[in-house]
């Protein structure tokens, strides 16, 4: 019975969604912000303007690749960059969203390091791997990043930061590179490629791609390190949402998210959300799925050098007001394939504000269930009625005998 109730509830939900108002749309602008010296400027500004608010995503590779997520309650807020200050030793205040008082929430996520370790036993146990198994980590702040303005696609609303290690004596990056692909969205829908992430107009997407980077061992596995900021009154936390629905990402039932812990369900809160899977080839076919796992957030407030872009926006004293926490996402599971198979890895995540999107059953699933379960029930009822009628008839035919 509970199941039927649930089904009815879902049907109701679906009909409400259809009958509801038009999907929320934003006007999205994607610009490479050029400075005086365009070769190193490499700032990407995504501005998603709504009726009465604006979401700013400011991507940059001054230091490690970093994205600033700023939510402003004015649809007229703008980005202001002071280039001289930005390249000075004290970049504090060089990047501003104005008017400053319209900012309701801001956070940053920096992609700082790529760890590589030798998983000779194929256990994919990153946190338990011995020190000796690790190769020197790639520090993304030391990478040389390509000019983002050349990859800008204003119709598809996407851009790409592509980088190689600045010093590469062993030629691991001879043919390969690490890239962060950014896509913005005007309205909600679902990604075309696996893992078919769901997004809304309040979201954008980042794809982390390692292509043709030569691994340093045959059994190398990789781990991506991110650093995130949150105001001291709150805290970031990681969260797994288990869903029975793997229709869009076959065999993957876990959705992971990095959300802010503040008990305030307003739109003004940033999140990062990803399915627990990466892929080992560019077509992202299921056969090449590489399950990924996230590890506990750990506080790195004291030690971590912050990327210049974060300092430029949050100020020199950012550590006093913000918790700085690091999160590792490791790729691969025990007995799984190694990166070496295709020398390729792609992992996608949705970045956005508000409540993270949640998958729901597709209409097709609901329709099949309704028909499949409904038919026998209907048949049972109709059958009983027909049988009763027929029996009555038969009896009445026999009556005249007496």
């Amino acid at each position, binding site marked *: 019975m509970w199941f039927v109730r649930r089904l009815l509830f879902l049907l109701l939900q679906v009909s409400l969604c259809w009958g509801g108002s038009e999907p929320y749309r934003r006007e999205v602008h994607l610009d490479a912000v050029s400075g005086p010296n365009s070769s190193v400027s490499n700032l990407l500004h995504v501005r998603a303007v709504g009726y009465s608010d604006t979401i700013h995503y400011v991507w940059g590779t001054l230091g490690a690749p970093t994205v600033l997520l700023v939510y402003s309650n004015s649809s007229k807020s703008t980005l202001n960059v002071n280039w001289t200050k930005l390249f000075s030793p004290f970049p504090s205040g060089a990047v501003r969203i104005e008017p400053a008082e319209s900012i309701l929430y801001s956070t940053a996520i920096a992609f700082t390091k790529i760890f590589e370790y030798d998983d000779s036993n194929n256990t994919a146990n990153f946190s338990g791997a011995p020190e000796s198994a690790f190769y020197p980590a790639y520090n993304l702040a030391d990478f040389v990043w390509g000019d983002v303005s050349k990859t800008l696609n204003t119709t598809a609303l996407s851009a790409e930061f592509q980088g190689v290690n600045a010093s590469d004596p062993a030629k691991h990056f001879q043919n390969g590179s690490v890239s962060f692909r950014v896509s913005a969205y005007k309205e909600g829908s679902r990604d075309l490629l696996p893992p078919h992430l769901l997004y809304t107009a309040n979201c954008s997407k980042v794809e982390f791609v390692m292509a043709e980077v030569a691994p340093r061992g045959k059994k190398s596995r990789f781990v991506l390190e991110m650093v995130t900021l949150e105001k001291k009154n709150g805290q970031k936390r990681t969260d797994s949402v*288990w869903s029975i629905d793997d*229709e869009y990402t*076959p065999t993957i039932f876990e959705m992971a998210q990095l959300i802010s812990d503040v008990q305030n369900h307003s739109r003004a809160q940033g999140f990062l959300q990803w399915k627990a899977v990466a892929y080992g080839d560019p077509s992202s076919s*299921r056969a090449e799925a590489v399950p990924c796992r996230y590890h506990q957030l750990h506080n790195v407030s004291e030690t971590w050098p912050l990327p210049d872009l974060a300092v430029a926006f949050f100020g020199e004293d950012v550590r006093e007001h913000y918790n700085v926490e690091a999160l590792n996402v490791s790729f691969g599971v025990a007995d799984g394939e190694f990166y070496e198979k295709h020398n390729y890895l792609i992992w996608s995540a949705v970045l956005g504000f508000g409540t993270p999107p949640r998958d729901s059953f597709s209409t097709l*699933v609901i329709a*099949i269930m309704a028909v*499949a379960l409904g038919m026998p029930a209907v048949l049972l009822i109709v*059958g009983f009625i027909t049988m009763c009628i027929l029996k009555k008839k038969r009896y009445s035919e026999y009556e005249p005998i007496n």
Partner: protein
Amino acid sequence: MAEYEEQESLLDGARDETGRRLYSAGENRGMSALCDPSRLAHRLVVLLIMCFLGFGSYFCYDNPAALQTQVQQDMKVNTATFMQLYAWYSWPNVILCFFGGFLIDRVFGIRLGTIIFSLFVCTGQVIFATGALCNAFWLMEAGRFVFGIGGESLAVAQNTYAVSWFKGKELNLVFGLQLSMSRVGSTVNMNIMGWIYSRIASMIGAAGPKTLGISLMIGAVTCVFSLACALIIGYLDKRAEKILNKEKGKTGDVIKLSDVKDFSLSLWLIFLICVCYYVAIFPFIGLGKVFFMGKFQLSSEEASAINSIVYIISAPLSPVFGFLVDKFGKNVIWVLCAVAATLAAHVMLAYTFWTPWLAMSLMGISYSLLACALWPMVAFVVPEHQLGTAYGFMQSIQNLGLGIIAIAAGAIMDSRGYLFLEVFFIACLCGSLIAVVMLYFVDSMTGGDLNLSATKRNKLQRLTAIEKEI
């Protein structure tokens, strides 16, 4: 694969003529009890060998399920292609189910037939393993095809031997034991192949097609063992025939394809129930291991164990349910319960994170119940001389269904995931459920005796007997 036992036992029940004496007993030539074919001790030895006759084929049938991840990784195939391994097993049986009995009766004879089918099973498994060794998936498929030619017919041969040795004696028990033994084969396979694979991987230092090939070759040892049993039992049977002037065992299947046009609506409904039900069981078990590991985060060993629980449960329960259904009658209601319970199990697997032990146990119970209640129903709606055709046809479309759905299931799982696959299985079961409900109405409107209680059925039988005498 599994259902021939029930069918044969029924065939036998339906045709058990007045206790013919098969053995010219009392001719004691001073042999020890173990060597004297007329003595129980000797028959027990034969029974043991008979049980192991089918062990190899049942063990190897589910090799792919036990090693799904390994096969997919080493051979680099997606799930749809992987499921071809099951489909290729089914294809020859779409045809062979009609002729298995005929081949044994008229062409080869039981002894030669058994040996030939065992050889097919053996060769098939060896080709299958060689395919893995050479990293040629098409060769593996060919192996499964050859294996399929032998597998199902070997089950027929095994039953024929059972009838020939135990008719009028411990026959039902023997069928029960054989059924249990086949389940044991499947279970052992599910739980041991992964372990063998990992041992070999650590021995040769790497996992790959070679590891898979060697593991499957080790699996082939069970087939060789079964072949040895076929040879021994062939010898013993010949010896017994000489000593006792024993009659030849017969399958009793007389297949006439023209009978098909006379099949009643009830029979077609029974076929529909059968196909729709079994396609939601066997292909699911074929894909189950990865499902349990992915959705419920279980270790590979535990996933294998859960996957084999259906077989484990049905081993002891089949005889119990057989007894119950015999005692109470009302077959349609039992079938209805079984289908509904399986439906509930699939719904649980699809829509909850409850421990899969629960759902799979329920599935195991309902699966055994269905087997005991469904297959005997055929005998109530078909005249005796058409029984062989009806059963052959039922097996044949079951295999056809299994072959098609195995591929479809693999493709669905690759493109749409497990939830959708489960919904698909649920839809199949609902098809089965509809057929049961229709069968109930059709039967009660035409005044059939499918759903009579056992006591009424007995009364009816006595009445007809009395009428005949008059």
